[in-house]
Every structure is written in structure tokens, then in C-alpha cells.
């Protein structure tokens, strides 16, 4: 029983780490621009797909991964520049449709570039299982956990310690005031989209060796990432990380002890319950409505 539980936890944390990274991307963009970017899942897919293609072309592993992140960052920047920035005055619902449109567009693009094939990515360092008691994990599980932890710490450092990070936070509190004190709001928006896209790509690269990637893999991950961000409390990046981990664990515990067929339903029921009792998410501040 204990071995089973440990195995569920390992799986839950790995799956949750991926959700956390995607959720973190949601939270960063939401913070900077009040936009929920439903194309976040597509960043994950583009990151993984680019990496796999570059590796196939014979480019060294590490270079390929870095280049894949760079490509995805460019896609993120382009999305901000050509779609979000053009629609500055759009309402919340309009921006939702714009980002949904963007996600369909990017998926369409991936379909043309990569076709409908299923792609596999070689793991970072071997496939020899590591034993933890009777439970096992792959080296890649550790990469996912470590990669997520490192990115989360870096993001934290960026927002709390660097001038640019603080400037982005200032934009999220009050855009007008931020621009009055001399912050280039447009540049900060660009940086947040780039950062989110980069985190998405990283998530894709980390999990691609465990699972497989197709042009439409981003849909499910985007959905889970959004759930993670909401569960943690939108606009609280660390909340999104916690939300992601929790979601991953919920799914695995639900599948392990209740029903594997209903595991996603169980996770969503829990999210609904949380929202009913804490309408601002677990770690979100209570919302005040502007009059």
C-alpha cells in the first residue's frame, strides 16, 4: 500500500510539475496584461515539436533544446505584437476569443509543419528506472521535477529582485501609474509574453520524453494549466505552481484510489468545491469589483 502511494506521488508530482509550468505561464501573462492566454498550451507543443525536429536534423541535443525555447519565445513575442497589442481596447471576452483563435491558428500551423504524426523525444539521460523502495521512476521524472523547481525559483527571483521584474509587477497593479513613473509598459508586456512562451516550451521539452507529442497535444495541457492557475488563484504565480502540483496529485490519487475513468472529473469536482468556498482560488486575494 505504501509502495503504491509512493508511486502515485511520484507520478502525481511529475504530471503536476508540467501543469505547474503551464499554469505559471498563464499567471505571468495574466498579471501583466489581464489577459488569459488560451494559446499557452500551444507553446508547450511548439517547444517540444521544435526540439524534436532540431534533434532529428542532427543538431546537438543541448543546442537543439535551447533553440527550441528560443523559437517558442519568438512565437510568444509575435503573438503579443501582432494580436494582443493590436487589440488593446478589447474586452475580456474578446481577448479570450482572440487567444482561442491564436491557439487554433498555431495548431493549424503545427499541422502544416509537422503533420499528424506522433513524435517521440529521446530522454535527457537514459531510460534506466531508478528504484525508490518498490516504486520506480525514470531519470526524466527527476529532470521534470528539478527543471520545474529551478524555473520557479528563477521566476521568483526575476519578479522579486530584478528591476525589470518589478516593473512588470508594477504594470500589473496599475498600468497607467506604471507608465507615469517611466516604465515602458509595451516592452514589459512583450517580456511577459516571451517569458511565458519560454516556460511553456520548457514544460514541453521536459515532458516530451515521458509522453509523446502531436500537433494537438497543447489543448489538454493548456486546459490543465489554466485549471492550475485558477485553482491557485489567478495572478499569483506561486499559487499557480501550487495549483499545478495539487492538480497532478489529485488526478493520480483519484485514479489510484477511486476510479481511473473518472479521475479528471474528480479533479474538476475538487476545483469547483474550492471555488465555491474560496471564490478567489486557494492563494488568490479576494477580488474587489471596480465600481
Amino acid at each position, binding site marked *: 500500500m505504501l509502495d503504491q502511494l509512493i508511486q502515485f506521488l511520484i507520478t502525481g508530482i511529475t504530471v503536476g510539475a508540467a501543469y505547474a509550468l503551464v499554469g505559471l505561464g498563464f499567471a505571468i501573462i495574466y498579471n501583466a496584461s489581464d489577459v488569459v492566454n488560451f494559446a499557452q498550451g500551444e507553446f508547450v507543443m511548439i517547444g517540444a515539436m521544435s526540439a524534436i525536429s532540431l534533434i532529428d536534423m542532427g543538431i546537438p541535443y543541448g543546442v537543439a533544446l535551447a533553440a527550441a525555447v528560443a523559437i517558442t519565445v519568438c512565437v510568444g513575442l509575435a503573438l503579443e505584437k501582432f494580436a494582443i497589442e493590436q487589440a488593446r481596447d478589447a474586452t475580456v471576452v474578446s481577448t479570450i476569443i482572440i487567444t482561442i483563435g491564436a491557439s487554433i491558428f498555431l495548431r493549424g500551423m503545427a*499541422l502544416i509543419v509537422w503533420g499528424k504524426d506522433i513524435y517521440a523525444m529521446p530522454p535527457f539521460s537514459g531510460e534506466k528506472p531508478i528504484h525508490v523502495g518498490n516504486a520506480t521512476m525514470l531519470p526524466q521524472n527527476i529532470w521534470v521535477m528539478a527543471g520545474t523547481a529551478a524555473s520557479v525559483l528563477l521566476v521568483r527571483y526575476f519578479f522579486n529582485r530584478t528591476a525589470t521584474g518589478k516593473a512588470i509587477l508594477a504594470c500589473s497593479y496599475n498600468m497607467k501609474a506604471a507608465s507615469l513613473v517611466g516604465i515602458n509598459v509595451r516592452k514589459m508586456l512583450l517580456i511577459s509574453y516571451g517569458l511565458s512562451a519560454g516556460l511553456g516550451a520548457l514544460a514541453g521539452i521536459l515532458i516530451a520524453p515521458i509522453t509523446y507529442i502531436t500537433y494537438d497535444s497543447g489543448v489538454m495541457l493548456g486546459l490543465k494549466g489554466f485549471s492550475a492557475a*485558477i485553482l491557485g488563484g489567478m495572478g499569483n504565480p506561486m499559487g499557480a505552481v501550487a495549483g499545478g502540483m495539487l492538480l497532478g496529485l489529485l488526478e493520480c490519487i483519484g485514479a489510484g484510489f477511486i476510479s481511473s475513468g473518472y479521475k479528471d472529473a474528480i479533479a*474538476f469536482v475538487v476545483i469547483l468545491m474550492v*471555488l465555491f468556498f474560496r471564490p478567489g482560488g486557494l492563494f488568490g486575494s479576494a477580488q474587489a469589483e471596480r465600481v
Partner: protein
Amino acid sequence: MRLAGFYLFAALVALLPVVFPDNYYVTVVGVTAFFNIMLAVGLNLLMGYAGQISLGHAAFFGIGAYVSAVTTVRYGWNPWVAMAAGLVLVWLIANLIARPILRLKGHYLAMATLGFGIIIHIVLVQADAFTGGPDGLSGIPGLVLFGWHVDSDLRWYVVAGAVMLLYVWLSLNIIDSREGRALRAVHGSEVAASTLGIDISGTKVRVFVLSALMASLTGSLFAHQQAFVSPDSFSFFFSIELVTMVVLGGLASTFGAVFGAVILTFLPEFLVVFEDFQMLIYGAILMLIMIFLPRGLFVTMADRIGPMFAGYFRQGIRET
């Protein structure tokens, strides 16, 4: 003249099958468009007028459809009884979840409705002993209306068209009623509305339930028209498509919702020629419309062509 736009629209709907009989776009895609209009008009009451986003509207559509399908196929119920049962069930569920869900705002509300939609979809897939699972349920009997069998595409055009026009008429009237004014006030500012003595949460709950019931009835009709239901018609993708219809046409305009539903029903029909490029083009069109016409196609058009539309279709467009 208040409903001139409505009469013009009704005349168009009535004339189409006369001018183009047995035309695929009229009797097949047209009926699909009618169902989408019904759903979009109902959702628009909730989103456009009460300002409450819902990313799970397909769930109520699905519950209605599946109650009709399961009770008629597995238990041999009369379709009309089944339809009523669907409405009762949806009424119960909507009332149960309306208050806690509608306390949420913005993206939290989006998440909660999305989650609800996904839970219902999972139940439809997993409870295969009842629902037939992902392969769906076939052999749903057709409707009989006073001895008149609704069994051809053309007859379904008449029935679905009539119900659709009823929905549009209802929506136009609700907006102009006392309740409609309360709704719009709630959307403008909840605080201001409550100081005017409007029962905000009551108003929101009523419109949520109404819009759910409209979806459920549409679902029942859909099940009987298709003679077959499967969960993929009620997935969260479809919920999102419904929201897109409402927003694309123009939020808070009944005819905007109608327009958006028609456009999104026909667009894929014309995009099929592009094969692999279909998705790319579809996404690009959505983005472009929302970037350049953020208030929606129909509303912007109505404003541009202003004088001509004034008094006919403008009725029901919220002043902003």
C-alpha cells in the same frame, strides 16, 4: 415597427426552402444553424445581458439531448415526456449550481463553468451502460406532432426553424421587459443596480436557469433530429464555439448572436476545400475579426450601416 427586423428575418427563414428546395445548405446545414442560433441566443441572454461568461453551455445542451435519447431508446418513453424530463432535470441542476457558480466572477466563473461542462462530458463518456459511451446512442425515434411525423430534412427545417424564431422573439421581448432592464443594469454595474433595489443574484440566477432550459430543449430537439447522439457533440470545444458565436456576432445583441451562429455554422462548410489549411484559416479569421471588430461583426456592421438598420435590427443592441 419594434419587431420589424424580426419579421424580416422570419420571412427570410420561411422563404429559403421555397426558393432552394432540397438544397444541402438549406435543409441540412440550415437546421444545424437553427440549433446553433437557439443555443447562441440563450447564451447571449446570460453573457451579453447579464454579463456572466459560461464556458460550459454545451453541458445543458448535452443533458437535454441525452435525457431524451436515453429515456426514449432504453425505456421507450414518449419523446414529449422525455423532453419534459430533460427540462426538469436541467432546471434542478441549474438551480442547484447557479448560486455558488454565479458568485464567481470573470475568469473564475469561466473556470467553474468550464469544469462543469467537462464533468458532464466525462460522465457521458464513462457511464456507457446508460449513454452508450463514446460510440453514442442511435435509434432515437423521431417526433410526432399531432399525427404529423417530423421525419424529413424539410420537416425538421420547419420545426427547428419555428422553435428558433420563437427563441429569437422571446429574447427580443425579454430584453425590453422589466426583467431585461434589470439584467442590463446588473451588467452595467452590480453595485449601482443593487442600490436601485434590483435583486441581483435573483436576476442572475433566473437568467442562468432560463438559458440552461433553452439549451436543454434545443438538445432534446437535436437528439430527435439527429436520431443519434454521441458525447463529442457536447464537448468543451463546442461550449467554446458557442461563446465564439455570441462574441463574434456582437455581445448583447440578439441578432448578433443569430449572425454569429450562422457564420460559424457555414464557415467550416466553405473551409473544407482548404483541407490541412482549414484550421489555420479558421483561427486567423477569429483573431482578425476580434482584433479589428472587437464589438463583433454584426454590431459593428449595424452601426456602420446605421440609419438603414436603425429601428429594424438595432433593437436589442445594448447602448455602450
